[in-house]
């Protein structure tokens, strides 16, 4: 019960939580735009991580350029994904699209194994490997980078959606497609951009967590599920809610693993998910369904 242990766990929990939150953001954007849960969101993290490692190993691309190429690639990837997995099913109900995203997720995992091999890969760290010792609390410098990037992306996103015309058009599309179409907004294009942006968020997550998680075809699986839990806990469709939900899950997991049972560490996220669904189905920050209608 000493202070330094608890501080250490809080720090790690927040770091893990901001990773969940980052991936959760991608979920929320797509959900808001097209009312579909994208179960390939975890693979949106895995694919750019592999691309980055490949660029690094084969072409020795230096770090800033590497980010740029990966981000551009993932933007295109998001649009292609949208075209293949969502667009043909856009007039169908929720379920066929969800199943289609699960299909793409399986395809991407196995594709990654065929293209990049079964062994996990090491992504070079942009930060020093030694932990920083801050008053007895050890912090991986990469975690600090992750937290800062998540914050920066949040701020960017806020300004983008509230202050720019494109952002407002995307918001309008998300709120009411018919209305947006009547106002002359090209809805299909807005949706494609949303997928591209969500995929770019995945690229950010992939490049950021690659050096600490290692890059393997399964790296996105559990991450995607935890991020999904984060969005539910935070309130589905709510952007700050997704981040806060992620931070909450990250912290609870570490403390529960320490004080209750390390064997059921992964279980706690899902226990919380079930509890939230039972007690407060709209999540901590979600609007009531009635208000949304």
């Amino acid at each position: 019960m000493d202070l330094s242990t608890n501080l250490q766990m809080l720090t790690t929990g927040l770091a893990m939580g901001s990773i969940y939150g980052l991936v959760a953001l991608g979920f929320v954007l797509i959900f808001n735009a097209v009312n579909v849960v994208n179960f390939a969101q975890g693979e949106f993290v895995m694919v750019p991580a592999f691309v980055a490692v490949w660029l690094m190993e084969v072409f020795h691309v230096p770090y800033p350029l590497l980010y740029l190429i990966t981000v551009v690639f993932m933007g295109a990837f998001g649009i292609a994904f949208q075209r293949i997995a969502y667009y043909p099913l856009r007039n169908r109900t929720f379920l066929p699209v969800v199943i289609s995203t699960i299909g793409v997720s399986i395809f991407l995992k196995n594709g990654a194994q065929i293209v990049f091999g079964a062994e996990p890969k090491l992504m070079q760290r942009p930060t020093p490997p030694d932990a920083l010792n801050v008053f007895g609390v050890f912090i991986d410098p990469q975690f600090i980078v992750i937290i800062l990037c998540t914050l920066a992306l949040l701020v960017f996103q806020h300004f983008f959606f509230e202050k720019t015309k494109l952002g407002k058009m995307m918001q309008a599309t998300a709120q009411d497609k018919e209305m947006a179409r009547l106002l002359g907004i090209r809805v299909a294009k807005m949706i494609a951009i949303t997928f591209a942006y969500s995929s770019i968020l995945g690229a950010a997550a992939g490049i950021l967590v690659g050096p600490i998680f290692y890059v393997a075809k399964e790296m996105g699986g559990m991450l995607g599920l935890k991020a999904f839990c984060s969005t539910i806990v935070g309130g589905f469709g709510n952007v700050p809610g997704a981040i806060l939900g992620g931070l909450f899950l990250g912290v609870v997991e570490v403390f529960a693993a320490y004080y209750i049972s390390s064997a059921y560490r992964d279980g706690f996220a899902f226990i919380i998910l079930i509890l939230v669904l039972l007690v407060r189905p709209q999540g901590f920050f979600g609007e009531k369904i009635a208000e949304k209608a």
Partner: protein
Amino acid sequence: MNMERNFLVALLSIMVLAVVGSASLADAQDIRIGFTPPVTGASAAEGSFQIKAIKLALKEINAAGGVNGKKIDLRMVDNQSTNPGALAALQKAVEQEKALVLVGSVKSTQILAMSDTIKNYGIPTIVGGTNVTLTRQGNPWLFRVRPDDSIAALAMIKYIKEDAKLTKVGILHDTDAFGAGGADLVEKYTKENGLTLVKREKFTTKDKDYTAQLLSLKNAGAQVMVVYAPNPEDAAVIMRQYRQLGSPYKYLGSPSSQHKDAINLAREASEGLLAVADFVPGATEANRKYAEDYKKEYNEEYDGLSIWTYDGLKILANAIKKVGEDRAKIRDAILATQGYKGGLGTFSFSPNGDGLHEVSVVQIEKGNPKLLKIVNVGSK
């Protein structure tokens, strides 16, 4: 269905004809040894290495004049990487190929499937599976030529007690069968050897954050952490976070911690850490010779998981050399094998049929496992 059946019948007939054909060509004076590797199916890649390893032994034995003036005729039957396939291969090797003795499988589950039939035939069978129970079920015909899973656990505790001279042990393990089974053994031997188990922490395969577990062991006062992780990738993440928390105790890992994947991923974080290994490449004379001969024969590096077929065939040949072609006598001769130096280590069979009672404790140095000590746990 019918088509499929006809096809199967045709295929089987061809196989039988091929077997009969080749059988008639073989010299009746040869000693037939059966071998059931996976040629097809999920383990086909492993199977190809096993075949290379055993053929090297075969070539060496026959080049040296064979056994008591007779050549060894190795009869290979595909076990199809499945349990029913392994059983069928065993039956075929004994009934059609008339094998005198057998080199079986490396998969514990296949060996369990074959075990009763092996007992009924009364045929000495060399196996490579490491599940502890295999040689503890009263089957006197199974001979294991790899260290079983319990030996690693016992060797870790012996090393902690006698060499590192530490008393407070913490365990971090995967909750799967291998991790939990290994941790159970570590816990048992910790207590039996008068050491203190301070805490047992768990994780799930592919977890990415071990802070809670590592801190918990630290606060429980562990002097050494035994890590039972089947997956080298997980071991790599554990190593790095252990380092980042300031290496608060010693690290002693199961073989995955010295696997090349773990070292490649953890890089400098793995430096100086301890792990156990079945054997260390190049640590013994016999192992160096095996590596050289293998390279000469196939022009590639050997596969560590397949040496057992090489050692196994040699042990069988030596036994037959001593007592002739009588299965019961061969069994006694295998059990009487003591101090035989093979590629995997020094074999001394215990009455229940276990040949290897040693594992190596290694320290990772500049990205390679370096032998610290071969720990012999004796026969139990």
